[in-house]
């Protein structure tokens, strides 16, 4: 996919892992701050996918913040819509809108809901929030791309919990049936869903084999290792005529020691002391 990056000459995309890392850190800091200031839930889910979003927005997606509706742009859908603080921040840092607009999050008379709404700011491609919708919408976008002979790629980020939804697997069947090799799904596999551990709620394993059997070309990566993430994201499609699946093994709450792998941070927001501690750790 490297040659395709040249297609977006003049648009900032970096191979520099350090730069992407810094953006991931900035996403984490902002996400914790947004939760602290507003009392918003889902800080753990947002931290879990901060590295994935940083890799996508700063190194992979061929997008131009000045032309957010460019027909040739790559599309990204946050199917796990509850992690939207991380997406809002990535978009702001990428220049889609001024950072100040993040103040419209989670408040009366605001503009940014706790789940993405298409059109609320530039760069949000699809409205999500109820789980199990994003992959189907992604199929539609990828199919349109094939029909119109466009070269854009479609990326969809799913949570592990939403692999419980039947619609996710309906989409899985269809994506491979249609041979959509311009579609990449990523699962933020932090193994902790809303009310328990995934292997205790509804066991997803063997997850890789399941997606393989559904016709996806699957790779597993460490979802906090930017080198692995960027390499995988840049080598899609893994196989011609097959949709790609990246299973990103992650940690819910990653980056803030007391939040890591703790269910309560699906809901809680940090208090003064917790916020200070988080900011000290996120340096």
């Amino acid at each position: 996919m490297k040659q395709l990056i040249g297609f977006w000459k003049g648009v900032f995309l970096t191979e520099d892992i350090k730069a992407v890392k810094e953006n991931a850190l900035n996403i984490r800091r902002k996400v914790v701050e947004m939760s602290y200031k507003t009392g918003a839930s889902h800080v753990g889910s947002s931290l879990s996918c901060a590295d994935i979003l940083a890799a996508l927005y700063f190194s992979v997606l061929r997008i131009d913040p000045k032309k957010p509706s460019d027909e040739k742009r790559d599309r990204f859908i946050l199917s796990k819509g509850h992690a939207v603080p991380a997406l809002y921040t990535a978009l702001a840092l990428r220049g889609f809108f001024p950072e100040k607009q993040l103040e419209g999050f989670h408040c009366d008379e605001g503009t940014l809901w706790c789940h993405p709404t298409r059109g609320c700011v530039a760069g949000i491609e699809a409205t999500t929030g109820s789980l199990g919708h994003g992959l189907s919408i992604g199929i539609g976008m990828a199919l349109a791309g094939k029909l119109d002979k466009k070269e854009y790629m479609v990326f969809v980020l799913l949570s592990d919990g939403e692999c419980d939804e039947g619609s996710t697997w309906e989409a899985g069947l269809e994506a491979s049936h249609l041979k959509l090799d311009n579609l990449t799904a990523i699962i933020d596999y932090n193994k902790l869903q809303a009310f328990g551990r995934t292997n205790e709620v509804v066991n997803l394993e063997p997850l890789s084999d399941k997606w393989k059997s559904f016709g996806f070309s699957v790779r597993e990566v460490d979802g906090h290792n930017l080198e692995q993430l960027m390499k995988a994201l840049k080598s899609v499609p893994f196989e011609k005529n097959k949709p790609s699946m990246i299973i990103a093994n992650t940690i819910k709450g990653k980056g803030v020691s007391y939040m890591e792998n703790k269910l309560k941070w699906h809901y809680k927001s940090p208090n003064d002391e917790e916020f200070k501690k988080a900011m000290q750790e996120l340096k």
Partner: protein
Amino acid sequence: MRKQFADTLLCEMKKNTSILLLTGDLGFSVFEEFMHEFPNRFFNMGVAEANMVGVAAGLALSGKKPFVYSIAPFVTMRCYEQVRNDVCYQNADVKIVGAGGGFSYGVNGPTHHAISDIAIMRALPNIVVVCPGDPVEASLATIAAVKNKGPVYLRLGRNEEPVVHLKEPLFELGKAIELRKGNDASLISTGNMLNNCITAAEKLSGKGIECRVVSMHTVKPLDKSTVLKAAKETKAVFSVEEHSLVGGLGSAVSEVLAESGSPILFKRIALPDKFACKTGSQKYLQKINLLSAESIAETVLKTVETGH
């Protein structure tokens, strides 16, 4: 209301071994006790509502009394055909519990708002649609749902809604509760609008307008006689709900009034037919959609004064 529902159901489960609780991966800080107390009767079915409702139907057809629980739009719309075919058509003894009626999920946005659920649920045969007006009614409705032998949709608030009933009322599914007497106008409320209606009625009393306030906790089957009585005995009737103008309590009440030939002055106080656009808390969203007690009082006053 959610807490009162959980507390009551826990008590009922101790008495009635056929009751099961199925959740769509929700209930953190609410259902932990069920997990410990009834490890074989509490099931986290994952984020898979369609499957959960189908499973509940199978359980009910095998002699169980399952309660299925999720956020209101997810447990009604996501699995609507399972509710229709598996539950209602087979008249299965399944209780569908939707947390977060109306704007309870506030800032979470329109994907989480339940403002069309009453409309779609009351369109189905066999189901009872209950929207408790306060925590007391939520508890009584849970007991009534257990006693009922068929499909019930229980639409709960999610937050700490104020207690309106100072003493326990007689509660029967399909039978409205009159909380306040008055003959100038009637406020027929469903769900969490009850407290706002009472406050509005008190404000109007200061202006010489005495409002009857009725909690129409059951939207289906609708208590027609209470509606017709209000139309006969008071000068104007208002339906009040945190739900779309389309298909909810207002529609149900207007159907009864229109077919009765009553000339009564009638108005629906409800949400406009659109998705919320400005973000905000439940209270804020109520306010900008003219559902606060102040706005309800103003609407009633203006309507009564102008006659339209």
